[in-house]
């Protein structure tokens, strides 16, 4: 069996779990190993139970695992909450006060190895030895993170790390969690979903972003802001989400490819703005990182519960596209593509992710920057005569989009129903002509739909259907079943609107059993497939406890997989 180690570090918020997680992640990637990092945290600044989990080994890994091989506990609660995930052969590293009498525990006195504010570094030193990561690789990662500005801090951390490493060498017995086969290399990026969305948007030509902070979307914007000066991107934290989307629309009208990023509750406030973008035919990218609702729900947890909301948000009828990345790579590519499609269709376009994808990180190959074709906002003024008609009726519904102030043409955009000049009209004939013109743009979006990906063979006895972030765990479950001799295929949708049934209906019909796996209670995507393709998906696997899917969760709920135990 290939190396697959699941390491979980738990403690309180403020104990620096993210820091060790990132350092360890970076060092493991540089040492040439495959990893999958996921984060689980409470909605608070200090305290609460937080974990940082790394699955490492030969991989590639597409999702988290339920059972834990190495548990590092910085508090007693970590041991208590994760006891059930230990396998009997797991290694537990905890202060003796945290795990009295627990079998397999390596009792360590954190206090003896370092001051309390550096217990994360103690854990890093211990893990470095246990996993046999070369000391200098960890140190380089530490240096990259802390910078060279504070040499004393760096020296203190190094000392604590080395002391802990020595302690581990003397006290941790020989164990089964040995990493093999890594070839050190520095040619892979360690990116989480939100970072990849930000990078993709910038590569797509993003020039303006407005936002109001909301977990789990905020880090998309923070990543953009960190690179704003390098990329000539303007940003603003608006007074509320209504202000944010209206700013993005104003900026886009004036020629800056624009986006907003939010979660369900913030998006609720943006709904009228979505409708405004549609009516004024202003391109805008709306990134919605889902978390469980209704209302405030579970701010730091995950769900795929806002599909129908995003699909229907905004009053009136108008075209839109919704992309739902299923991997870190897709976060990058689809953010880029979504920005292009917003401009091409002069419409609001959505990127629908969730907390799980936002906070998960995996090594990926660098993206090809040389071949990108960023958005060019607006059309050349030479394409239009004076007086210019912003909403000229055309065959495909697209009117030349000129930008205000860039020529003598006057650009008149209106949220009222309007004539070709952009001025208010209450004429019923104009109304029909303008509605039809806007709706014709749906064909432009349909022509460019990202087709669902079939993994496995058409006509398999079991077809697992998924969308968005569920892709990884579903594929892992399928691969487990295939190893047991089952004929299983996966059909994954990275774009959930518009749906083009000719791309997938035959695949659904050819399958023995179709099971839709989605992270909501009521089966929103299964319902959408029925509505659009007339195919009833009768079996569903739902998850809505706030946690991401795992392969084990899926297998446990598949009757055809009953009794299939395994380390997964």
């Amino acid at each position, binding site marked *: 069996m290939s190396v697959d180690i699941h390491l979980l570090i738990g403690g309180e918020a403020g104990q620096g779990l993210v820091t060790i997680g990132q350092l360890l992640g970076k060092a493991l990637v540089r040492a040439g190993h495959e990893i999958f990092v996921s984060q689980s945290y409470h909605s608070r600044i200090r305290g609460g139970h937080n974990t940082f989990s790394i699955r490492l080994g030969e991989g590639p890994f597409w999702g988290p695992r339920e059972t834990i091989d190495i548990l590092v506990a910085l508090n007693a609660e970590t041991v208590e909450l994760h006891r059930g995930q230990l396998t009997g052969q797991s290694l537990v590293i905890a202060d003796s006060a945290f795990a009295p009498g627990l079998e397999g525990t390596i009792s360590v006195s954190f206090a003896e190895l370092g001051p309390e504010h550096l217990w994360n570094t103690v854990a890093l030193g211990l893990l470095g030895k246990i996993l046999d990561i070369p000391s200098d690789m960890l140190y380089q990662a530490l240096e990259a993170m802390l910078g060279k500005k504070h040499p004393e801090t760096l020296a203190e951390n190094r000392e604590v790390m080395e002391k802990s490493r020595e302690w581990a060498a003397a006290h941790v017995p020989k164990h089964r969690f040995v990493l093999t086969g890594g070839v050190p290399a*520095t040619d*892979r*990026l*360690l*990116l989480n979903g939100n970072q990849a969305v930000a*990078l993709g948007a*910038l*590569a797509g*030509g993003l*020039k*303006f972003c407005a936002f109001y902070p909301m977990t789990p979307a905020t880090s998309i914007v923070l990543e953009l802001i960190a*690179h704003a*000066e*390098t*990329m*000539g*991107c*303007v940003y*603003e934290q*608006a007074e*509320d989400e*209504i*202000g944010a989307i*209206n*700013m*993005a*629309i*104003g*900026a*886009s*009208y*004036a*020629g*800056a490819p*624009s986006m907003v990023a939010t979660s369900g509750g913030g998006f609720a406030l943006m709904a*009228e*703005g979505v409708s*405004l973008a549609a009516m*004024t035919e202003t391109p805008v990218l709306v990134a919605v990182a889902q978390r469980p609702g209704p209302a405030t729900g579970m701010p730091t947890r995950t769900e795929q519960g806002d599909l129908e909301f995003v699909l229907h948000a905004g009053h009136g009828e108008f075209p839109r596209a919704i992309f739902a990345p299923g991997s870190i790579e897709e976060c990058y590519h689809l953010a880029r593509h979504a920005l292009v499609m917003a401009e091409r269709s002069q419409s609001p376009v959505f990127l629908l992710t969730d907390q799980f994808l936002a906070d998960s990180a995996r090594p990926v190959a*660098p993206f090809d*920057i*040389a071949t*990108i074709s960023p958005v060019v*906002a*607006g059309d050349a003024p030479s394409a239009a005569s004076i007086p210019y008609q912003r909403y000229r009726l055309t065959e495909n519904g697209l009117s030349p989009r000129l*930008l*205000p*102030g*860039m020529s*003598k*043409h*006057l650009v*008149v*955009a*209106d*949220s*009222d129903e309007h004539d070709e000049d*952009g*001025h*208010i009209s209450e004429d019923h004939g104009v109304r029909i002509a303008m509605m039809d013109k806007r709706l014709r743009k749906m064909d432009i979006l349909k022509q460019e739909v990202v087709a669902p990906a079939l993994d496995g063979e058409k006509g398999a006895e079991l077809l697992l259907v998924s969308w968005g972030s569920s892709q990884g765990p579903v594929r892992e479950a399928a691969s487990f079943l295939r190893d047991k001799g089952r004929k299983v295929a996966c059909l994954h949708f990275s774009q959930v609107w518009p749906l083009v049934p000719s791309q997938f209906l035959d695949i659904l019909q050819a399958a023995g059993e179709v099971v839709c796996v989605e992270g909501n209670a009521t089966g929103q995507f299964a319902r959408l497939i029925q509505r659009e393709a007339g195919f009833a998906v009768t079996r569903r696997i739902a998850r809505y406890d706030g946690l991401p899917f795992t392969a084990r969760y899926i297998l446990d709920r598949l009757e055809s997989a009953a009794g299939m135990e395994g380390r997964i």
Partner: protein
Amino acid sequence: MTSIKDYGEYETAWCPGCGNFGILNCLKKALVACELAPHQVLLVSGIGQAAKTPHYLKANVFNGLHGRSLPVAIGAKLANPELTVIAESGDGCMYGEGGNHFLAALRRNLDLTILAHDNRVYGLTKGQASPTSEQGFMSKAQPHGAFAAPFNPVAVAVTMGASFVARGYAGMPEHLAVLIAQAIKHRGTALVDIMQPCVSFNKVNTYKWYKEHCYELGDGHDPTDHAQALNIALEFGERIPLGVIYKQEKPLFEDQFPVLKKGALVGQEVSREGLQQIMQGYL
């Protein structure tokens, strides 16, 4: 040279005698006085009778949603700082539905102008009390009279240390046109609150009423004196002061972005070197 004819003539949807006619003429005069051609100007409005103004002259126009003129104006200015951006709407739109945007816009201080047609009533929805209606203002929606105290936009703006705060009156067009031109020329967010009769729905604040209550600030008022400006701003009732009430030079919001020194964002290339450099950081 731009002339008033360049700004065109349109048929309007306003009631005969509406204060909006006077304000529209003043706006055109002010734009000419500022030597601006129509294509250099962007008028952004929300919804209401005042918000229709941009449809009645030649300029770039974004007629958005109720209350949302300011965020659209801010976004557009940040995408193209070379545009002269004017947000124009009524009291309900600017101070009621858009109240949060109004406060935030004054705090930011971009180089833009806010023209608020303040007729102290909702016209388009036929006569309900607005944020600036007098207490006791009777309507079908407030049958016992408006209970809430009126919002004083000028006093709020002065209190917040806004960059330029003025009050004009639709019935004094010469004075108003000069105020609007000053507001447009001012480097910073400039508010002109414009007193305006509503001949259909406000039977209290009529042309006669304004004539009796409004007065022009003379040379004795120093608009750069904050304490004096605050006193003047709080004067609203028996006597209503008109003119530039407060002004100060403040850093411009847009100046914090080096990229905007190069002009409109639309012409600027996506830096491939920049992207490579960002990717290096994830290695």
